């Protein structure tokens, strides 16, 4: 039996066979010398690729939704494009191997897309590369992607966003990655899917592990490979208790979030992607309390266009069918940025040019985003909130920019809904100035993660500071209480969207402080509702 640790990102017990995931690397074979033979190889590989894509379409349509399936559908059409096929054929006739011809043609077409003005079309370069890469891998005799015959536990170094699309999510019982962090793509995915997972796991990734029995304990952050009978018995017991709890939670689906004494609270979900709306609805969230915008900007070569942003926000608003979404404007800084922002390296990015500060310095970036948000607001209830506010002047400045944008849009004849404008309370300055700030905005949403790190001067990414990062620190609780009181004094609502909102030991405290909304991971909504319904807190 092998026992090891990792950092748990979602609690629960998973038991199953190990699947080791490795991103394959292929070197291209040269031509066999006969173009006719190479052409035949290509035709055969193309057919296999089409079959694989069709199988992926069938899977993703059911699990990930229409958008991902559409991307694959487009890739299939690309494989049948005459320009694309002509180019491959010409290269083969000129002595290239099938694999070389596909690679070269894919790169050329990708470059053409990447050079287009429209950001949406630029992003299609990835699709051409992806589909060409698939054919190349087939030609090189490797299996593309990754298949799982039965449900199991996936072990990997780490997974990139495009890899997470390809893996068969319906068969994954748990992720165990050697790298990553609690905010890495895999961790976020695990939380949204609600499966126990470990990141930063101490594990030797070896293909010898393939097929062996494994148990992941997401409560304790432990794993067992080839567990003995005693461990299996203990873990099964633990799993049954967890499953039983889950069944109990289901009885809270569709119920109102109200304490025994009649205190109501809204339970919203945090999401990072339009496709997460599905999970929010599955988790029974009453709305979205934090929609991050970063995904729209990261992992690409240029700023997204207004239409692209609008399309993403539109998907969310439409998907929510009348529930509210609180969209946070771009919150990136030197630690998490895309190259095209050209932000200077900073000694201390947590205190640097980030969040609303970037938007104030670069009105054009802000303008494009606000226009997209305002356009989406015509389709359903939308609130917008600004991150990293520290001063009243910042809010006034942003409001002035917003009004200008709105006027401009009204003149263009565009529809704008009734948008609430709020701010994140995540700097101690904002918390201390809450009374003044409350007069300027429609709502507050407290980001407890940053508020904790700034209040305590503790970098939450720094592992050697474990134990100093204390979200229950009295200083923090005092700020939280004052923020809620200031909000209500000014007649506006206030919520919490940091990790602390999902902490069930804090629920009574937050209700007592008067918070009107708590926004948590989609999979945590039901357990929070249970806690609220069992609470004795009186209405204010």
């Amino acid at each position, binding site marked *: 039996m092998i026992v090891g640790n990792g950092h748990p990102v979602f609690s629960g017990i998973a038991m199953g066979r190990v699947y080791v995931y490795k991103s394959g690397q292929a070197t291209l074979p040269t031509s066999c010398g006969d173009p006719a033979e190479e052409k035949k190889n290509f035709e055969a590989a193309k057919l296999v690729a089409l079959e694989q894509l069709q199988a992926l379409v069938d899977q993703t349509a059911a699990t990930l939704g229409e958008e991902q399936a559409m991307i694959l*559908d*487009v890739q299939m*059409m690309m494989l049948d494009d*005459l320009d*694309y096929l002509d180019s491959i054929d010409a290269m083969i006739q000129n002595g290239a191997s099938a694999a070389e011809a596909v690679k070269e043609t894919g790169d050329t077409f990708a470059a*053409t897309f990447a050079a287009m003005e429209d950001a949406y079309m630029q992003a*299609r370069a990835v699709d*051409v590369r992806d589909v060409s890469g698939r054919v190349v891998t087939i030609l090189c005799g490797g299996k593309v992607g990754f298949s799982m015959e039965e449900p199991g536990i996936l072990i990997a170094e780490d997974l990139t966003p495009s890899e997470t699309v390809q893996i068969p999510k319906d068969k994954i019982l748990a992720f165990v990655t050697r790298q990553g962090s609690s905010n890495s793509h895999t961790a976020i995915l695990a939380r949204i899917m609600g499966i126990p997972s470990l990141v930063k796991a101490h594990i030797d990734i070896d293909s010898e592990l393939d097929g062996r029995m494994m148990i992941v304990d997401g409560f304790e952050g432990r794993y067992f490979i080839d567990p003995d009978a005693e461990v299996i018995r203990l873990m099964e017991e633990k799993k049954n208790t967890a499953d039983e709890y889950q069944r109990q939670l289901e009885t809270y689906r569709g119920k109102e979030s109200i304490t025994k004494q009649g205190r109501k609270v809204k339970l919203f979900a945090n999401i990072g992607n339009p496709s997460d709306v599905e999970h929010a609805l599955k988790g029974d969230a009453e709305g979205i309390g934090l929609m991050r915008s970063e995904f729209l900007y990261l992992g690409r070569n240029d700023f997204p266009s207004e*239409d692209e942003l609008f*399309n993403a926000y539109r998907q969310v608003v439409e998907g929510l069918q009348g529930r509210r979404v609180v969209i946070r404007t771009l919150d990136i800084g030197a630690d998490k940025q895309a190259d095209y922002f050209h932000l200077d390296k900073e000694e201390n990015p947590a205190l640097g040019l980030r969040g609303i500060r970037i938007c104030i310095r670069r009105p054009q970036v802000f303008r494009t985003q606000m226009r997209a948000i305002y356009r989406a607001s015509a389709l359903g209830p939308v609130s917008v909130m600004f991150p990293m506010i520290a001063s009243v002047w910042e809010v006034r400045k942003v409001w002035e920019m917003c009004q200008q944008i709105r006027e401009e849009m009204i003149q263009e004849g565009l529809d704008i809904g009734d948008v609430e404008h709020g701010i994140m309370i995540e700097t101690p300055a904002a918390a201390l100035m809450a009374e003044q700030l409350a007069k300027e905005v429609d709502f507050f949403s407290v980001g407890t993660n940053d508020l904790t790190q700034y209040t305590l001067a503790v970098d939450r990414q720094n592992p050697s500071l474990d134990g100093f990062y204390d979200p229950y620190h009295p200083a923090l609780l005092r700020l939280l209480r004052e923020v809620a009181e200031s909000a209500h004094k000014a007649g506006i609502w206030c919520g919490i969207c940091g990790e602390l909102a999902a902490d069930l030991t804090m629920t009574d405290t937050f209700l007592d402080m008067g918070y009107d909304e708590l926004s948590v991971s989609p999979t945590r909504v039901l357990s929070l509702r249970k806690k609220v319904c069992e609470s004795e807190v009186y209405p204010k």
Partner: protein
Amino acid sequence: MKTITYVIQDPIGLHARPAGQLAKAAGAWKECDIKITVGAKTVDAKRIMGVMQLGAKQGNTLTLAVSGPQEAEAAAALEEFLKNNL
């Protein structure tokens, strides 16, 4: 030759999926030569990469030129497609 013009209504323009569907719809008319023009660019309507590379946006005018034995039917069918999808 039959020509039809159409102004794109879809807020995200002629994006990948409709481009593919349009190429498929055009491909169904094997005997016809179908060209599509937006602004100064003209491409073969049966080729998805070309159609996507038009980068046509909401408010742009598409011009479809169909020539061949069944050009009237093809033009009518494609016009119907544009109305329903774009």
